[in-house]
């Protein structure tokens, strides 16, 4: 083995306290970044996942003219011919006034968001039906599913309760109908349809006076990475229509923009943490250099050049960086695996969407390794400045 590397290793391993301290500094720096990533990126991805699963799909098709007048069958069939597409479903949105009598009291709620869904197609393109906490999903055209928060606002409405709903149609007329509550939906973190009323799309079309029209189509893909490709293919296939097709990143941009900058800020804090671990390495290595002053003098006296001393201490930085990056990455991965396997969530909130971002994992490990080397430069330089005679006088 190269003698300078051997010496660097021995000097470091014989000072176990310093070695452990320096390695811990690197490890904690990496761990902070991994934990930040798992929690905040996991939360971001979970929100994207839920928006995609419950509302927008991987591609959201709308129309410049507010409503799509092409038939459900035509568009759904067009999408479902594409192998990447898992399912496509029309959606229609409006708002309603609801009133119901509960325990002899009349409770009224206004401006409640209403979502019209095609129950048969929706189950292929959305997982909204999986959030049913009580009862069932849409059974027929006379039933509705209440979001958990709406049910609470209506005095804890239950499955089987009857309610009256008023929707203003396209000509400004009030359309009132009575519905039976078929189910109540509740999603972790409330990202689903918890604040909405879900009903059959054809019923909503009737009430709004928009027969055969849809507000949007949500398209779910088997492989979300193909979203852009499918979107472009769709737009090219309907050049004469005024369709707007957006990937989840585009359609949810407004909701996600603030979050994205928050994550950038948190990441920045993580990297500052890593920087402070570099300062810890500088301090520990300065202690190592001070502790080895006599040895440095002896080495210089038997012919070691300043460059040799510099290399020995840079090797030490590399060893600290390599072990720290290894341990830190292993600990970070351990935490990531734990978070993924346990579908980590905080206080029954949205379960984190944990992914192994290998690019980021490798990048973090390499960055901390490089920082450890960088941090060792100053102590190494100081070591080269010791004069042999003076260094050897040190006891």
């Amino acid at each position, binding site marked *: 083995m190269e*003698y300078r590397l051997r010496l660097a290793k021995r000097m470091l391993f014989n000072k176990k306290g310093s070695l452990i301290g320096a390695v811990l500094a690197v490890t904690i720096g990496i761990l902070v970044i991994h934990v930040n990533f798992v929690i905040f990126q996991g939360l971001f991805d979970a929100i994207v996942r839920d928006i995609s699963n419950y509302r927008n799909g991987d591609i959201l098709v709308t129309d410049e003219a507010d409503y799509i007048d092409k038939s459900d069958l035509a568009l759904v069939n067009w999408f479902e011919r594409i192998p990447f597409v898992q399912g496509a479903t029309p959606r229609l949105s409006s708002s309603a006034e609801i009133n119901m009598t509960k325990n002899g009291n009349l409770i009224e709620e206004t401006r409640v968001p209403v979502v019209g869904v095609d129950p048969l197609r929706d189950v292929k393109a959305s997982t909204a039906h999986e959030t049913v906490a009580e009862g069932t999903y849409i059974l027929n055209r006379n039933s509705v599913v209440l979001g958990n928060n709406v049910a609470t606002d209506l005095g804890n409405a239950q499955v089987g309760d009857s309610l009256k709903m008023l929707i203003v149609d396209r000509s400004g007329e009030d359309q009132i109908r009575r519905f039976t509550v078929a189910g109540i939906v509740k999603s972790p973190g409330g990202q689903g349809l918890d604040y909405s009323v879900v009903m059959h799309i054809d019923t909503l079309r009737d009430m709004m006076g928009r027969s055969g029209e849809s507000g949007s189509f949500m398209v779910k893909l088997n492989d979300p990475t193909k979203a852009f490709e499918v979107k472009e293919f769709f737009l090219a296939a309907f050049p004469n229509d005024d369709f707007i097709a957006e990937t989840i990143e585009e359609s949810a941009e407004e909701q996600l923009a603030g979050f994205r900058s928050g994550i950038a800020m948190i990441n920045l804090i993580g990297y500052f943490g890593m920087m402070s671990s570099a300062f810890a390495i500088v301090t520990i290595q300065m202690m190592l250099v001070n502790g080895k002053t006599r040895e440095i003098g002896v080495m210089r006296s*038997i012919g070691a050049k300043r460059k040799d001393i510099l290399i020995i201490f840079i090797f030490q930085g590399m060893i600290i960086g390599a072990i720290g990056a290894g341990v830190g990455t292993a600990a970070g991965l351990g935490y990531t695996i734990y978070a993924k396997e346990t579908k980590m969530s905080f206080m029954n909130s949205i379960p984190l969407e944990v992914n192994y971002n290998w690019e980021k994992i490798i990048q973090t490990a390499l960055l901390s390794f490089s920082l450890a080397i960088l941090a060792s430069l100053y102590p190494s330089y100081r070591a080269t400045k010791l004069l042999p005679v003076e260094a050897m006088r040190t006891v």
Partner: protein
Amino acid sequence: MTKIYGMGENKVKALDDASFSIEKGEFVLIVGSSGSGKSTLLNMIGLLDRPTKGKVFIDGTDTTKLNDNKISAFRNKKLGFIFQFSNLLTDLTVLENVLLPRQIAGTNGSAEKDARELLKIVELESQINKRANKISGGQAQRVAIARGLINRPSIVLADEPTGNLDSVTSKIIVDLMKSMAKKLNQTFIIVTHEPDHFGDVDKIITIKDGKAFEGEPLAHPEIIA
């Protein structure tokens, strides 16, 4: 050469125009009282420090003109050091300590064979894999001798090599140095305040108040005065 430490009122003249020459293969003692400048002189000869004034010629080379890298290479190839406290690197084994100057020189060819041979001469072949801090003071000093000789330097410099040893071990070390000097035709320059331990030597240089005198102190009435 002259060496002055400090500045202004704190100036100390450690060497005062000291001048002498030593021939190849000579076994030379540098003697003098404590603080006379012996070690300073050895540091100048060993290129561990630079004189304030004057020059040090080794094998015809004016060493004061060499830059730091060349001085390091010169120390590595031409000079061998034996210190009072052996100054072994405690992180390395006995064998690794002896090998170190050769590894620094980058000529590893027969290094291990040579190191083992030297350790056999200093009777430490059974200790080669021991950590340097796990052997006795006498053994450490013998390892230091082997380390000082591994690159076959033309000059071996020893600073109080027996200063830290008992009389029996001192004799072993002195005999060892003398036999090595004869065997390898090397110049030995030894700083000591115990010249009697060394018996007959080729030359004695006495240092008094930074000045150098060739011969024993008794030969110089001005020193005694």
